[in-house]
Every structure is written in structure tokens, then in C-alpha cells.
């Protein structure tokens, strides 16, 4: 999130699109309710009427997978009706920037497309620079190649009529939402967007969010209280795990994982983002300091200038390699690797195309399953359709502690790092994950010390000194993440003050690229300082009255509660919205008052620093040249879709998505055997694959079995009655479910055709309860967004039919 949960209460309009906030983030609904109590309008846009819709002031349906069309229409509406915040658009976005004349867009394709590679050469999407290397701008926004004019041209195609044909949303419903949300373009009005997997799990997932970023930037809703683009995380600590570099493509704190051709640290540092514009802070220019400090944190005294701080000991990606989830299991299926740790997850139910995932696991020599309970992953070898005699995979089950059985921090969607105490001991032999991994590594290292392992340096040189009283010491790790001064620094370049060796750095501003500092994760630097553990703070002071609570826990970066907050003030540093003053420049004291400023430079004036400090140009990107699928969002149909032709162009699906074509991967578009659009989703009562919640009697009592929600019209068509047992089937698999026939789902009119939508939850699995049902992911396809590879679980094609009782077969004698 750019903002945080409590901040919802500051909004005038709350749009929940791509999510189901009441059901999946119920506690946050408190703040939506607080906004509504003050007169805010709450809008829900979704294929399905949910518990969220029941509380919405405006509820509007759209066909799953058509959000870009819906939002494209909104962008056009905002531009046509001049609802945008002109000051903001001119000063704080790249609207005025001039684009390369070779940039073009024609019939669904941006310039630079190579059909053989299914990829773009993005060089023609570049922004034009002047002789000093500074982006060319036209502040009148009239230049035909300026972003504003290109944006207008691109989205002029998204007429109400076309949007309705694609989404199935009636024109009057579209207008209702556009009008209500567009009203937040006034400087003293603000709108926030809350999304979740409903936007991510599409082959156009990133562009769904990009489209809303454009809306928010046009309306001046970024960097202000009550605004922002707010991702509601589906796991309480998924923000923290992403920050900690759990994914293949990043080291901790979003430093990119080095690629093999960058053989030295100097090569790696050459890829640091640059800007020649003196008005752009370009905070990423500091990356070499963070990289060196990270390496010092990993290899300690073994990391020296002479050995590139151990840079060569860390794994590199092959150039252009994608090692994300879908590829990982595809490689596992092909037998590329033989061992697997399934740690705190249940891929046999959570992975898209779970049937393939389960088959992939049969190719392993060994698997370690670390979890609270046995699950469909650890016991895959005795699951449905498996023959244990033929599976050689050896599975080790390690029971671990639950969150309340260990101490540590959790980072919520609003980037708050909150410290939790341990409430009780774990049962039996279960141990905290940290203890398990700490001891495991000690054993691995002992083996390397004894024998001759291949490439032993990273193992032998790793700094692994986090033990406290024979256990994994969580405070030692938290301090390591914050970072230390490793030498006495008599006069620090940041503030000319002296710092002592062995003390904690006050913040990442003090990190150095010469090996004199360490830091496990630069964005968390300042979280655990000489003043103590900031995440454990619990003071309820609220000096701004906006609910920032700066002394409650700690938010990254540097306790900033709303990022890009300098976009909330005018050129002189005065709040543009007098009712929600997030930041104000105190000219006499020469300092900002309010939130922690982003960052502490004087007001922008006419030649000062731009507010979007993490972007190379310092402004919000209406035109975003950094993605694989285009600088503007464009509507493409899901990989599996119900219509033959994309209403917008001759490119039916995203031209750059990776198609897995071998083995078990099968897809069906416009196939009469699979005529209905299907989405998977969650309910309040279960969590993820249900590994925790299916074992809780009160929760399984409330949502006991797999269900399939469908409209009255579809039920009539398929002769299904409410409560009937049905089979839901795709080209990849089938599951049984109990039919919930409901007026909450409705057929869509898509370009003159009736399209039915069904939906199923993904919380069940064969292990428990025995009559609960199976994983919805047995149905979902192996296909992902080209930028993130998040699978398209929200829009695929399925059939549903009633299970008819077959008469018992009579044995015939011949």
C-alpha cells in the first residue's frame, strides 16, 4: 500500500475493485465504515455480489477479466469531462513528457513487437531527452507526442458502448461509477482504491493496477491522506515476506537479483538507475550502498573490498531467466531438480494447475514439508489418483510453531512492522521456523566442513551468529536487518557526526558502499536502533489527527506512513487539501511538519525536487515504459475466454504471455465443452488452502464444504437446484461442489451473447474433512502475467453439471 488501513477513513470515495474487502479483510472494514459514517461513498465493482456488495452504496458488475476496459472507460470519462486535477497532472506526473516519435500503437500492438519471441523491444517507448539528458516537456500538454495527448488518443477508443460490450456492465452503471469516482479530481476531494487478487490473478494483472494508477494520478489522489493505491494482502505477513526477498527476482528490500553476465559488483552497480535531471531525487541512486551493506550483513568479516564483499558467492540468474512459481513447478515436472522444501505452504492445493503440481512432486527424490498440520503436499503420495508403490519421493514432515507460539515481527499491508510477543509454547516437538532453519544450516555447514562440497565458499563464509541461549535469536536478526556501523566513523558523510563501531545505524541514510556498514534490508533500516525496537512501540499519539499514529509500531521506509506525501502540497509546501493536511512546510523552521516527508528537501517551487523520489524522472508515470506488455494498459481477453474476438483489436490475448504447451498443460477457449467463465476466491471463514482453518471445528462448521455459486438463469439452463451436488470441470481437471444458486450472480450480455459466470472457493483439500471437497486449483491453468507470473485464477473456462445418480451396474453373465 502507498497508504495504510486506518487511512481509509480519510477518503470521500472508496472504490473496492479487484477485491472483496468485507469478506477477505474484515477487520479493515472498520475504517471503511468510519469513512461512511462521515458520508463517504463506498463503491464495489465485481463479477459477483458478495458480502462487500451488500454494504456498498454503489455495486456494479463486470465480467471477470475485463477491468482494463472498465478503467479505460473511466480514464476517457475523466479526460473528456475535464475531471482531472490539472495542477497535479502538470507538475507531479509525466503528462507533459515527450515520447520517442517511433512509439506507436496499432490494432492491439505497441511498437517494437517481435512475434517469434512473443516479446517487445521497448526502446521506442523511451521518453525524449534534451542535449543535457533531461526529459523534454511541454507544460501546455499540447505537443502531439506528449504523454497527455498519447494517453488521450489511446483511451479515446474506450467508448461507453465498447466498454459495455466487453464488460457486460450496462452504460448507466459505468457512468454512475465514473461520475462518483471522477468527482475526487477536485483538490479537496479524495478517493482511494482497494484491490487484492481480483486484479493480480490475470494475464493482465499488472496492467489492471497500472490502469488504476493512471486514474489516481489524473485525479491527484496519490501521496495524499485518504488516497493511494492500496493492495490488500491476503496473508498477514506477505508484505514482510516480499520485503525480505523471498521471491527469486529480488534480494531483500527490492535490490534486483544479479544476473550471470554481471560478474562483478561493479557490473551490478552499473545497472543502478540514473537521472541527469537535477530536480529528480532518484533515490535508487543509493543502491550501491544498500548492496554493499547487504553483502556485509550476509558474509560479515569474510566480505571485503578485495573480494567484492562476497558478491560472487551469491547465486545469479541466467540472463532473462524467470524462476517464479509456474516455471519452478514446470521444471520440477520435467525432473530438472530433485529436492524441495515446502515451507509454510501447500502447493498441492495452492498452486495453479494443482494436478500438474502434484504430478511434479512425484519426480522428486525428497521433499521436506514444514507446517502446522499434515497437508495435501506432505501426503501427496497417498492422495487421490496416486499409487504410493510407484512414487519414490521420500517426504520428511517437520512440525513448526504457529505465529502466536513464537516472537517476531509481521509487516502488514500498510508497511507497518509490528512486533508480536510469544503467547504460548508450541505443542510437542513443534519448533519455530527460525530454529529449524538455523539448526538445519549448522548441519549443512558441518557437512561442508567435513567433506568436499562443490563451491563451499557461500556456505562456509556465511555469517551465522544469531544464537541466543541455544536458540535462534530473533532480536539479533531484527538488529541485523536494521544494520550496524562496523567501524568507528569519526565524521559521517551524512551528518558530520561521529558513530561508534558495533552500534546500530539510525537509518539507511547512514549506509555506506565501502564496507563500513551492514544492513540486512535497507527499507527496514531505522526499525531497531540504539533507541530500541521501534516495531514494539504502542503509543496512540496522533499529532496530525489523520490517524498516522507515528509512535505505534513502525512503518517502512523511515516510519513514513503515506509515501510520496510531498505530492499532497503545492509548490510552496502548503497542503492542497486544507481538510486533510498531511504535510506542511514550516518556512521559519525550515522543516516539514506532519508525516515523515518523502523526502526532506524544501518545497518544490519552480526548480526544486519532484515528489516521486523512487521514479527516475521524479514524477508519477501515466506513461510507463518499464513493463513487458506495454507503456499503457490495453484490454486483452483472458487466455481462456468466452468470445472469439477481442472487441478492441485483433490481439485476442496478451501478445507477450508465456504459453506452457507441453505435458499436462491444456487450454480451452470458446470451446463448447467449457462454456462458463469461472473464478476462484476466498471466504472469510477460511485461510488460503485451509491448512489451518479446516482443522478448526467452528470455522469448518460455518463453511463446511466446497461450493459453486451460480445464477438462477444458469441453474435453470443446467437443471440444477440449490443444494445439488455438481461437477465443475475444465480441460485440466474436475471437482465436485454443492451448488449455491443465487440472485447474487447474473449472466452478462457480452457483445450480444449471454455469458455465464460461476465461482468456487479454493480452501478445500482431500485430507480433511473427508467430505469437504478438493482443491479448486485442480481446475486453474498454468498461465501468468508476463511481468509477475501470477497465475490467472480469476478467469478461466469451465463447465458445471449436476451429478445424476447412476443406477448400480448389473453384473451380466454371458
Amino acid at each position, binding site marked *: 500500500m502507498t497508504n495504510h488501513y486506518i487511512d481509509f477513513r480519510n477518503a470521500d470515495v472508496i472504490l473496492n475493485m479487484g477485491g472483496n474487502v468485507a469478506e477477505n479483510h474484515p477487520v479493515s472494514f472498520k475504517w471503511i465504515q468510519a469513512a461512511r459514517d462521515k458520508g463517504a461513498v463506498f463503491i464495489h465493482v465485481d463479477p459477483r455480489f458478495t458480502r462487500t456488495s*451488500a454494504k456498498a452504496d454503489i455495486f456494479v458488475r463486470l465480467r471477470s477479466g475485463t477491468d482494463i476496459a472498465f478503467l479505460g472507460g473511466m480514464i476517457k470519462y475523466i479526460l473528456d469531462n475535464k475531471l482531472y486535477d490539472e495542477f497535479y497532472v502538470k507538475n507531479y506526473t509525466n503528462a507533459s513528457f515527450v515520447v520517442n516519435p517511433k512509439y506507436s500503437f496499432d490494432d492491439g500492438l505497441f511498437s517494437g513487437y517481435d512475434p517469434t519471441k512473443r516479446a517487445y523491444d521497448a526502446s521506442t517507448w523511451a521518453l525524449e531527452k534534451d542535449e543535457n539528458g533531461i526529459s523534454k516537456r511541454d507544460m501546455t500538454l499540447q505537443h502531439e507526442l506528449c504523454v497527455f495527448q498519447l494517453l488521450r488518443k489511446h483511451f479515446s477508443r474506450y467508448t461507453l458502448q465498447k466498454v459495455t460490450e466487453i464488460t457486460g456492465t450496462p452504460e448507466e452503471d459505468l457512468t454512475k461509477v465514473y461520475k462518483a469516482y471522477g468527482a475526487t479530481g477536485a483538490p479537496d476531494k479524495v478517493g482511494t482504491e482497494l484491490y487484492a487478487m481480483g486484479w493480480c490473478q490475470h494475464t493482465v494483472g499488472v496492467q489492471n493496477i497500472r490502469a488504476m494508477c493512471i486514474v489516481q494520478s489524473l485525479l491527484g489522489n496519490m501521496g495524499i491522506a485518504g488516497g493511494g493505491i492500496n493492495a490488500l494482502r491476503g496473508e498477514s505477513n506477505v508484505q514482510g515476506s516480499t520485503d525480505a526477498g523471498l521471491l527469486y527476482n529480488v534480494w531483500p528490500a527490492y535490490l534486483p537479483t544479479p544476473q550471470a553476465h554481471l560478474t562483478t559488483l561493479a557490473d551490478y552497480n552499473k545497472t543502478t538507475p540514473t537521472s541527469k535531471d537535477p530536480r529528480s531525487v532518484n533515490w535508487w541512486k543509493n543502491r550501491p550502498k544498500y548492496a554493499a551493506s547487504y553483502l556485509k550483513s550476509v558474509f560479515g568479516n569474510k566480505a571485503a573490498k578485495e573480494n567484492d564483499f562476497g558478491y560472487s558467492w551469491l547465486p545469479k540468474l541466467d540472463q532473462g531467466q524467470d524462476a517464479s512459481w509456474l516455471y519452478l513447478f514446470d521444471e520440477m515436472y520435467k525432473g530438472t531438480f530433485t529436492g524441495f522444501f515446502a515451507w509454510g505452504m501447500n502447493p498441492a492445493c495452492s498452486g495453479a494447475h494443482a494436478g500438474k503440481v502434484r504430478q511434479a512432486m512425484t519426480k522428486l527424490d525428497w521433499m521436506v514439508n514444514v507446517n502446522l498440520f499434515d497437508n495435501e503436499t506432505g501426503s501427496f503420495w497417498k492422495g487421490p489418483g496416486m499409487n504410493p508403490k510407484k512414487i519414490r519421493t521420500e517426504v520428511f514432515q517437520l512440525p513448526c510453531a504457529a505465529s502466536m507460539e513464537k516472537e517476531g515481527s509481521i509487516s502488514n499491508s500498510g508497511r507497518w512492522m509490528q512486533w508480536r510477543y510469544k503467547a504460548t509454547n508450541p505443542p510437542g516437538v513443534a519448533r519455530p521456523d527460525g530454529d529449524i532453519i538455523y539448526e538445519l544450516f549448522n548441519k549443512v555447514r558441518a557437512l561442508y566442513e567435513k567433506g568436499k562440497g562443490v563451491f563451499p565458499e557461500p556456505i562456509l563464509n556465511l555469517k551465522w551468529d544469531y544464537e541466543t541461549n541455544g536458540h535462534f535469536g530473533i532480536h539479533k536478526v531484527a538488529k541485523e536487518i536494521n544494520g550496524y556501523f562496523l567501524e568507528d566513523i569519526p565524521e559521517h558523510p551524512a551528518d558530520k557526526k561521529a558513530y561508534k563501531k558495533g552500534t546500530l545505524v539510525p537509518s539507511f541514510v547512514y549506509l555506506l558502499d565501502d564496507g563500513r556498514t551492514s544492513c540486512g534490508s535497507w527499507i527496514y533500516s531505522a526499525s531497531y536502533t540504539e533507541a530500541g525496537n521501534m516495531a514494539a512501540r504502542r503509543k496512540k499519539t496522533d499529532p496530525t489527527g489523520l490517524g498516522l499514529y507515528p509512535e505505534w509500531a513502525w512503518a517502512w521506509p523511515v516510519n513514513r506512513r503515506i509515501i510520496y506525501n510531498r505530492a499532497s502540497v503545492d509548490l510552496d509546501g502548503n497542503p492542497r487539501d486544507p481538510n486533510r493536511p498531511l504535510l506542511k512546510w514550516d518556512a521559519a523552521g525550515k522543516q516539514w511538519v506532519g508525516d515523515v516527508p518523502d523526502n526532506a528537501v524544501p518545497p518544490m517551487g519552480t526548480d526544486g525536487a519532484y515528489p516521486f523520489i523512487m521514479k527516475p524522472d521524479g514524477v508519477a508515470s501515466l506513461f510507463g515504459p518499464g513493463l513487458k506488455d506495454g507503456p499503457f494498459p490495453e484490454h486483452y481477453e483472458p487466455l481462456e475466454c468466452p468470445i472469439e474476438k477481442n472487441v478492441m483489436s485483433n490481439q485476442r490475448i496478451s501478445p507477450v504471455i508465456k504459453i506452457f504447451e507441453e505435458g499436462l498443460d491444456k487450454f480451452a477457449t470458446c470451446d463448447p465443452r467449457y462454456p462458463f467463465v469461472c473464478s476462484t476466491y476466498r471466504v*472469510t471463514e477460511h485461510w488460503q488452502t485451509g491448512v489451518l482453518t479446516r482443522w478448526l471445528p*467452528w470455522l469448518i*462448521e*460455518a463453511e463446511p464444504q466446497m461450493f459453486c455459486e451460480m445464477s438462477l438463469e444458469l441453474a435453470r439452463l443446467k437443471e440444477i437446484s440449490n*443444494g*445439488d451436488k455438481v461437477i465443475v470441470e475444465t480441460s485440466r481437471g474436475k471437482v465436485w461442489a*454443492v451448488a449455491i444458486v443465487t440472485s447474487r450472480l447474473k449472466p452478462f450480455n457480452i457483445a450480444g451473447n449471454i455469458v455465464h459466470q460461476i465461482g468456487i472457493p479454493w480452501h478445500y483439500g482431500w485430507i480433511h474433512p473427508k467430505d469437504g471437497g478438493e482443491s479448486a486449483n485442480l481446475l486453474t491453468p498454468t498461465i501468468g502475467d508476463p511481468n509477475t507470473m501470477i497465475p490467472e485464477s480469476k478467469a478461466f473456462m469451465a463447465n458445471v453439471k449436476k451429478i445424476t445418480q447412476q443406477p448400480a451396474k448389473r453384473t451380466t453373465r454371458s
Partner: protein
Amino acid sequence: MADKSFFIDTTKCMACRGCQIACKQWNKNPGTKTLQRGNHQNPSDLSFFTYKLVRFSELEEGGKTKWYFFADQCRHCIEPPCKATAESLGSKAVSRDEATGAVIFNPKVKVKAADFQAIRESCPYDIPRWNEKVGGMAKCTMCFDRIKEGMLPACVKSCPTGTMNFGDRKDMLQKANKRFEEVKKVYKDALLANPDDVRTIYLLVDDPKKYHKFAAAENSIGITRKMALKRLFQPLSDLRQIIG
């Protein structure tokens, strides 16, 4: 301890069922075996083991879908007909705490099936439940064991949206009336259900029947016709006992 009441603002309820689960947890009630029946409401009804149940009611009016949520529980009536009926049958299963007004069933007191039937029928809100094995009755206790320690009832404590409220009766009535005045401006059919007769006051925005058959009592005094008849005949039955 002052006279207590709940105020349940259904306009804020999004059916997360935190109250239903918290109630089970605090009262150590088991999860019962349920099946998906084509409806998200589960368990299907209140029971000896379920004192608090979020009821889901789906309807379509003028092409508009509505989904009403009703967090059902004992109303802790000012004049509890269940207590009067139990007493008329010579049962000590129902008592009332004079300080708080909590109406309490003692599940250990055996109640015959027929007597339970009479007690249940006397309740305009269809709350009392009985278990054949145990032979006793159970329902919401107002978390009497929590409130006497100054804690909130478990359902109120768990509610994230402000739907569930609990406190001194005069404060709850004030809160209910204030919220009713606000809500009335948007929903012309808004009402407070039987506020003068019960200690669990619901704010509804539509005909109570659309939420649940027993959401509100039909007459304002909270006593059914059957109950009134029972009262009428009470002295006579007592007399018969004496004669017998």
C-alpha cells in the same frame, strides 16, 4: 452493576461471523457437523451448542439484490416470557440477574421435552434450545461470566465494525436512537426492534421479516397470544396441582 443492554446495528454488519465464532470459543461450545446446503448460513439454526448465529437472507426487489445479515441471539427481555413459562411449569431452569437483567438458562437443570416446547413457544424470538442427551436448555448468557469481571461479551469484543455494542441500558438506548435518526434519513423503513421490551436492540432498515421470521416480536409487549393464555390459566393449573 447497572441494567445492561446490547445494541446491534445491522447496517454495519458484513457477516464476518466473528461474533458467532467468538461465542462458541468463550462458551466452549463444539462445532457441530454441518453440510453446505446451498446457503452460507451455517449452522442452519441456533442450537444447544450455538447461542449466536449470523443469519443470511437474500432477496431481490425491483431487480436489485439485497443480502441482509442478522446476528441472532437472545433478547434478554425486560419481562422474559420464557422465565414466566418455566416458573408456571414449576421449573427453575430460567433465572434473571437483577443487576444486569441477563436472562440465564441453567443447562444442568433438567427440563422435560414438553415443558421445553412450551418455553420455546413462549419466546417471541424463538431462542430457547434443548438437548435431549443433556436434558437441559441453553442460549446466550450475555457472557455473564465476562461482564461481571468488567469485560465485554465475547461477540461484542470480536466485532470489527461496530455492529455489536454493549453497555449500560440508558447508553445503549441513546446510541440506538441516535443511530436510528441518522439511518432513517437514508432508509425510510428503518426501525428499532422492540426497544422497550428487550435488552438486545436491533437496528433494521427493512421489514424485520425480510431478515428473519423471528427478528422482531409481533406485538410490542413481547408476549405471544399463547403466552397470554398460559398466564390466564396459570392460577387454575396451580389450583389443580393443589387439589391433585
